[in-house]
């Protein structure tokens, strides 16, 4: 290791509860009134990972927090939301079939199939409301687009991937 270069960096985040209790209650109250249909969440993670940043493919500093967040969503509406956890280090075939790039990833679907709306990384900050909005839209089957946009999107005949890079702030 070159002189002056530090080893693995400890990420100091989320030593408190990820989401405070008042927000959890708010979420429960909101889901009670807003959710209408079932939502299936799939969390792709590496259980047992610490918050140490290790070489690519080994560590997962935010997987534990992502698990807490996914369980928070499920527990906010357990009668509507189901959660499946996939260990990407043990289920390579599933990762390939579902076309998962990395962990943690939360996929959102109406049924128990593979979600085509995904959050790769920990959706905190401004991404958290987007996660909640996605859950609600999937539950209500409301895309929110104009009829013209829906007709225009019918021109897509091949699978199309959109990667939207965002930051929590």
């Amino acid at each position, binding site marked *: 290791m070159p002189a002056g270069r530090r080893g693995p960096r400890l990420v100091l985040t989320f030593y408190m509860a990820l989401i405070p209790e008042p927000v959890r209650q708010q979420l429960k109250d909101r889901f009670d009134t807003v959710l209408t249909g079932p939502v299936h969440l799939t969390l792709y993670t590496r259980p047992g990972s610490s918050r140490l940043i290790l070489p*690519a493919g080994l560590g997962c500093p*935010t997987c534990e927090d992502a698990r807490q967040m996914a369980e928070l969503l499920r527990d906010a509406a357990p009668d509507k939301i189901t959660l499946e956890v996939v260990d990407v280090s043990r289920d390579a075939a599933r990762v390939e079939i579902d*076309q998962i*790039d*990395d962990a943690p*990833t939360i996929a959102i679907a109406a049924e128990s199939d593979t979600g*085509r*709306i*995904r*959050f*790769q*990384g*920990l*959706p905190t900050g401004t*991404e958290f409301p*987007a996660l909640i909005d996605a859950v609600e*839209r*999937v539950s209500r*089957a*409301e*895309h929110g*687009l*104009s009829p*013209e*946009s*829906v*007709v*225009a*999107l*019918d*021109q*897509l*005949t*091949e*699978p*199309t*991937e*959109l*990667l*939207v*890079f*965002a*930051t*929590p702030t």
Partner: protein
Amino acid sequence: MALASSQIRAVCVEANEFPQLSNQFRVRGVPHTVINRKASFVGALPEQDFVMAVLEGAGVESPHPDPPPQAGEGETTPRPLAGEGEATPRPQTGEGVEGEINYSAR
């Protein structure tokens, strides 16, 4: 958009958490949208422009924002041009996207 089209898979990537992926697509600002890992644009576009950018980026030839007009429709209900009484003028096909979308090589 992924709810409106079964062809679309939408992935929101936390840019700071995956620096290799961010560097691969030269992410310098957010939101930064990459279509099929070939085309990209930066910023939040109006809905119609966003749809057109996705269609162009996905390789749809001659994408159109609206269904083809029926015969005679244009004579009875002409779409107002920009500045002719429409409060929020809609850009014509391609306007607003061209120049913002960047077809970058991988």
